[in-house]
C-alpha cells in the first residue's frame, strides 16, 4: 500500500543527510492526520531499503513544527476498538522511527504539541529553536486524554518523572530553553545556529539524553507508587477524578507499568482508547473548538493599536493596564493622584514577576506602563479604556473631557458592568465610537472579555474592539448591551439561589459541594466571598431591578455588618490566611436537589439569554459561560449540557421545581430555541 506522498518532501544533501520536511497541503498548520502518518509510513519503507547517513525531520510551515494529532479524526471514532487500531498504528509508526539504523533528529521551530512532540521524542535527538515563539508540550490532558503514540513511555524514560509527569499533567508548554533544562530537547539554539546544530548532531551524534540519577531513584517501584499517590492528591485539588480521569490515568499507567516498555506502550494505548470514548473528551474537544472560534472572531489585522490609555487605577483598571503592558502595548494609566496609582504599580510588578522570566523583560514591561496623572496619554491612545467606579456623572465628566482630545478613529471603551452604555453615550459627540470592553476579575486569569455593543455602536468600533481583544490575547465575546450582559446575568441567579439556600438553613459547605461535584471550579458561596459580597450585592441590585430577581436576606445582612468575604476575612465563611475555614462535618442535605436548584437557575437564565439574543447563537453562549465563569468544561457549556441531558426532561423537572420552590423555576421561553 503505497500512499501518494504529497505532504512530506524529502531531500538529500551533500553529507548524505535526508531532510524530511512536513508541509501539509492546503493548511498553514501541520497536524498528524491519518494520511500524513500513512505517507510517512511509506517513506520509511523506502528509507529502510537504503538508509541515509542521518535523517532530520522539520516543518515547512512558517508557524510551527506540528500542532498535534488531527482532533477531527478523534470525533469520528465510534468504538474503543476503532480507537485502539488508530492508536496502535501511530505507535507502530513511531517505533519504526525509533528503530531506524541511522541517527534521527527533530528540528523544532515554533509550536510543537502533542503528537508532534511524540514524534520528536521517537527521534534520537531534538534540536529546538530558542526564540519567543517556540513552545513544546504534551497538552493532551486538556482534551481529556494523554499521549499515546509512545509519548508517555518515552517522556518518562528519558526525563525526571517529576518534570515529565508535571508537563503531561498540566499540559503546560515549554520554551526551548525550559525544554532543554529538563532534557526534553537536546539543544536550544538561535535561528542563526539551528541548522548547523541539527546537522552537527546528525553527523557526529553525541551521547543520547538519559535519565538523571534522581529520576532513576524516583522511578524505582516502591517510590514510584508513593510519588504517583502524592501527585494524585495534588491533581485532586484542581481536577477531581470523577470529572477529569485523564491525569489519573497518566499516573496509573506510569506507576503500574514503568520499566516494561512494551507493556506500558500497550497500556498507554488501552488507557486512551477508554478515555476517548467518554462524552467528556467530546465536550472538551468542543471547548477547544469554541476557543478556536472565539480566537478567530474579527480581523486582527484590521486594527493595529499600539497605545492603550486606561482611566481609573483601581483593581480592574490597574490590572487591565498591567495586562496590556505585559502583552507589549504602551500603556498610560491615569488616576487623580499619584497615590492612587501605587497599588496598580505594585500589582503590575507582581504580574510581570510571575509571567516574565528575565529582569530585562520585566523592565521592558514596566517601561511600557506609564503613570499619567495629567491624562496626556489620551491624545496618543488607539484605545481608551475607562474603568473608574460606577458613577454616571463621573463617567460623563471624563467622556466630555477626553472625547475632543482623542485621536480620530481611536476606540473609546468602558469597562462598566452595570451602567447601560446608551446612558453613557449621551454626552458624546460621536456616540458610535463607544463600546463596552468588559473584563473579568482577576484580569490576568480570566480569558474572556465581553464586547458590548449598543444600537448606536458603529460596526467599525465593534470590529476594532474585537481586534484589540485578540491583540491582547483575550477571547472576545460580542454581546448585546443589556443589564449584566451575558456572564454576570447568568451567574447571578445561580449565586442568588445559593444565598436563598443559605437563608433556608443549608450549610455553605453543602451548597459549594453540590456545585463542585457538578464540575464548577469553585462553589457559589466561596465564589461570592472571593468576589466580595459588596460587589455581589451591587451587581445583584442592578440585575434585580432589571429582571426581578429577588435579593436574599443573607447577602444584605453580611454587607450591612461589613463582612464582605475573603477581603475582610469574614463572609459566608471565615478566612484564615486567605483560605475559607470549612466545616468538614457539615450536614450535606439533599445534594441532588441542591445541585439541581443551583444549576437549573443558571441553565434557565441561559435559555432566556438565547431567546433575547444577548449572544448570536448557542455556541457563543456556551463559550461565554465556560470561559467567563469556568462552567464545567467537560460538560461543554450550559446549552450542550442541556442537550446531552435531554431538554424535554430538564424542562419537566424544572416545572416540577416551580411548583415546589417557586416561580423562579418557571421554564424560560427560550427552551424551544435550544433544541433547534
Amino acid at each position, binding site marked *: 500500500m503505497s500512499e501518494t506522498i504529497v505532504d512530506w518532501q524529502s531531500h538529500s544533501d551533500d553529507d548524505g543527510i535526508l531532510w524530511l520536511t512536513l508541509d501539509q497541503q492546503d493548511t498553514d498548520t501541520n497536524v498528524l492526520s491519518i494520511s500524513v502518518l500513512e505517507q510517512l509510513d511509506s517513506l520509511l519503507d523506502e528509507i529502510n531499503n537504503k538508509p541515509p547517513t542521518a535523517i532530520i525531520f522539520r516543518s515547512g510551515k512558517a508557524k510551527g513544527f506540528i500542532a498535534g494529532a488531527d482532533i477531527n479524526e478523534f470525533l469520528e471514532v465510534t468504538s474503543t476498538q476503532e480507537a485502539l487500531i488508530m492508536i496502535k498504528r501511530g505507535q507502530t509508526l513511531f517505533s519504526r522511527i525509533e528503530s531506524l539504523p541511522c541517527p534521527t533528529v527533530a528540528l523544532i521551530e515554533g509550536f510543537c504539541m502533542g503528537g508532534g512532540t511524540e514524534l520528536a521524542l521517537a527521534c534520537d535527538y531534538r534540536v529546538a529553536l530558542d526564540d519567543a515563539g517556540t513552545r513544546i508540550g504534551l497538552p493532551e490532558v486538556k482534551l481529556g486524554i494523554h499521549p499515546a503514540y509512545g509519548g508517555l513511555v518515552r517522556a518518562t524514560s528519558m526525563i525526571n518523572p517529576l518534570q515529565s509527569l508535571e508537563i503531561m499533567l498540566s499540559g503546560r508548554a515549554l520554551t526551548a530553553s525550559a525544554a532543554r533544562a529538563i532534557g526534553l530537547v537536546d539543544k536550544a539554539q538561535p535561528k542563526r545556529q539551528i541548522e548547523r546544530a541539527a546537522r552537527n548532531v546528525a553527523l557526529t551524534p553525541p551521547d543520547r539524553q538519559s535519565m538523571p540519577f534522581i529520576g532513576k531513584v524516583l522511578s524505582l517501584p516502591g517510590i514510584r507508587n508513593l510519588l504517583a499517590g502524592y501527585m494524585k492528591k495534588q491533581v485532586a485539588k484542581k481536577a477531581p477524578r470523577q470529572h477529569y480521569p485523564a491525569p489519573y490515568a497518566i499516573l496509573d499507567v506510569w506507576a503500574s507499568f514503568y520499566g516494561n516498555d512494551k507493556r506500558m506502550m500497550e497500556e498507554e494505548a488501552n488507557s486512551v482508547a477508554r478515555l476517548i470514548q467518554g462524552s467528556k473528551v467530546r465536550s472538551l474537544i468542543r471547548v477547544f473548538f469554541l476557543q478556536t472560534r472565539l480566537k478567530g472572531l474579527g480581523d486582527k489585522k484590521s486594527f493595529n493599536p499600539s497605545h492603550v490609555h486606561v482611566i481609573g487605577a483601581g483593581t480592574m483598571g490597574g490590572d487591565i493596564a498591567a495586562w496590556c503592558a505585559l502583552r507589549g502595548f504602551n500603556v498610560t494609566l491615569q488616576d487623580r493622584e499619584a497615590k492612587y496609582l501605587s497599588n496598580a504599580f505594585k500589582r503590575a*510588578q507582581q504580574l510581570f514577576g510571575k509571567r516574565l522570566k528575565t529582569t530585562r523583560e520585566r523592565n521592558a514591561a514596566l517601561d511600557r506602563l506609564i503613570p499619567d*496623572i495629567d491624562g496626556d496619554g489620551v491624545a496618543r491612545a488607539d484605545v481608551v479604556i475607562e474603568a473608574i467606579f460606577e458613577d454616571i456623572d463621573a463617567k460623563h465628566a471624563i467622556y466630555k473631557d477626553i472625547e475632543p482630545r482623542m485621536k480620530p478613529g481611536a476606540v473609546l471603551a468602558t469597562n462598566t458592568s452595570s451602567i447601560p452604555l446608551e446612558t453613557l453615550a449621551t454626552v458624546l459627540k460621536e456616540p458610535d465610537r463607544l463600546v463596552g470592553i468588559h473584563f473579568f476579575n482577576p484580569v490576568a486569569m480570566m480569558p474572556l472579555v465581553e464586547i458590548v455593543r449598543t444600537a448606536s455602536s458603529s460596526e467599525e468600533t465593534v470590529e476594532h474592539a474585537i481586534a484589540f481583544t485578540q491583540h491582547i490575547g483575550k477571547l472576545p465575546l460580542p454581546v448585546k448591551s443589556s443589564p449584566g450582559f451575558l456572564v454576570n446575568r447568568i451567574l447571578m441567579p445561580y449565586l442568588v439561589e445559593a444565598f436563598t439556600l443559605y437563608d433556608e438553613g443549608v450549610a455553605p459547605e453543602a451548597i459549594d459541594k453540590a456545585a463542585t461535584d457538578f464540575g464548577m471550579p469553585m462553589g457559589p458561596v466561596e465564589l461570592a466571598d472571593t468576589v466580595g459580597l459588596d460587589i455581589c450585592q451591587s451587581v445583584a441590585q442592578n440585575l434585580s431591578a432589571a429582571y426581578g430577581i429577588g435579593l436574599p436576606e443573607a447577602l444584605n445582612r453580611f454587607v450591612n455588618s461589613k463582612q464582605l468575604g475573603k477581603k475582610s476575612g469574614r463572609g459566608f465563611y471565615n478566612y484564615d490566611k486567605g483560605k475559607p475555614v470549612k466545616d468538614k462535618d457539615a450536614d450535606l442535605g439533599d445534594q441532588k436537589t441542591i445541585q439541581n436548584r443551583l444549576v437549573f437557575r443558571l441553565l434557565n437564565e441561559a435559555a432566556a439569554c438565547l431567546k433575547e439574543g444577548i449572544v448570536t447563537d448557542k455556541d457563543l453562549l456556551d463559550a461565554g459561560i465556560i470561559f467567563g465563569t469556568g462552567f464545567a468544561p467537560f460538560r461543554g457549556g450550559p446549552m450542550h449540557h442541556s442537550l446531552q441531558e435531554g431538554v424535554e426532561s430538564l424542562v419537566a423537572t424544572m416545572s416540577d421545581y416551580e411548583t415546589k420552590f417557586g416561580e423562579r423555576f418557571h421554564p424560560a421561553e427560550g427552551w424551544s430555541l435550544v433544541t433547534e
Partner: protein
Amino acid sequence: MAATNKKYSKPVYLVDGNRTPFLKARGRPGPFKHADLGIYAARSLLLRMPFAATEFDEVIFGSTMPGPDEANIARIVALRLGCGDQVPAYTVHRNCASGMQALDNAAMSIASGRSDLVLAGGIEAMSQAPLLFHPKMVNWLADWWGAKSIGQKFKVLGGFSPRLLAPVIALLKGLTDPVVGLNMGQTAEQIAYRFGITRDQMDQFALESHLKLHQAQQDNELPEVVPVFDSRGKVYHLDDGVRPDSTLEKLAKLRPAFDKPYGLVTPGNSAQITDGAAALVMASEAAVKKHDLPILARLVSTEWAALSPAEMGLGPAHAIAPLLKSQRLKVSDIDYWEINEAFAAQVLAVLAALNDKDYCKQQLGLRSAVGEIPLERLNIHGGGVSLGHPVGASGARIVLHLAKVLQQKNASTGVASLCIGGGQGGAMLIERSTS
C-alpha cells in the same frame, strides 16, 4: 574660530522638561537604577509631545557614574524609551556639569544644523555607586585564576589576607580630586577660608535652602517633578531630602565632615547625596514650526571656564563673568539665577568673588567687580543643599527649573551655573519672551 558674540549661531529652543524627585541616598542602593530614573523623567515628557519618540535626531545624557551594566546610558535610555533602533545616542561627562554639558552639546548640534530635535538631560543614581575591590585584591584574584596546579593554588592562597577584602568606595573616589588630593568638601573649606565665610553664614544659607524648597513644594512650584514608583508600588513624588523642621540651632550642632575637627563645612550645609534625573526636549526653529511646539525658553549662550582644582567651588564666578561680558549684560539685567549649591560655603564664596574688585581684577581679568547677585533672585525654590546634587543630573535640573521660574514670574532672562569638580565652572544664559 568661534563667533565673536559667543551666541549659538541659530536659535535653540527649550520646549519642555521633566525630572524625577531627587531621592536622598540612605546608605544603601536606592530603589532606582540610573536608567530607570532617566526613563521616568523622559516618559511623561514625551507623552506631552506631539511627535513620536522615534522622531528625535539624537539623545544626549550626562552621567558621571552609571552602573557597570549601563555603559553609554543615553543609548540605553533612548532604546528603553521607544526611540527605536535608529536614533543615535551618547553620554557626556564633565563631572558635576554633565547634565549642562548634555544641553550644550544638544544646543551646538541644533545650532550647527545637524539636529532639529534632541532629547537631552542628566542622570545620576549616586546611591548605586559600587563598592570596588582594592587593586591588591584584583591582583590576588588574577593570581588565583592563573594558578594551574594544586601547588600553585596553595601558594596563592598563602598570600591571602582578609585586609584585601576591604572595599574601595567608588563614590568617595569620585568626589576626591586625584590631582590636588583634596576632597570636594575640603575645596569648599579652602574658598570659605579665602573669602572669610563664617559657619553662621553657611548654616543660614542652608536653612533658607530648605525653607524655600519646602515652600515651593507647598505652593506647587515644581511642576516639572513627576512621580516615580518603586518595585513595591511605593510612590515618590517630592524631593525627599527637604527638612522643613530644620533650624539654625540644629544645624549648628553638626560636626565638620571633611576638615576634622576644626572645619566649617558640615553635612547640613553641603549638598546631599541623591538619586535623580532630568530630561529636556530641545528643538530648532524648524522643528518648533513643524510640530507646532510650545517654547519654554531659548538657550542663548554657554560659557565654560577652568581654574585651580583646589578652588573648584569658585568655578561659577569664572564662567558667569565672561558670559555676562560677551553678552553685554550686567548683573542687574538678569531676572533669576540658579547657582548649584554644592556647598553653602561655595555659593557664598562665588557671590563674594563676583562682588570683590580685587578678585575680579586679578583672577577674572576684569576692570571692576561683576556685582552683587541679590539673594532673593538666587535659587528661589531651594537648591542642592535641600534637594540634593545627583552629580550628572544637576546641570540639567537647574536650567530646566530656571526656565520654569522665568515662566512662573513672567520674566525674561536667567543664568544657570555650577561648579565642577576638577576645577571648572559652567554658565548658561537663557531667555524667554515675556507675555
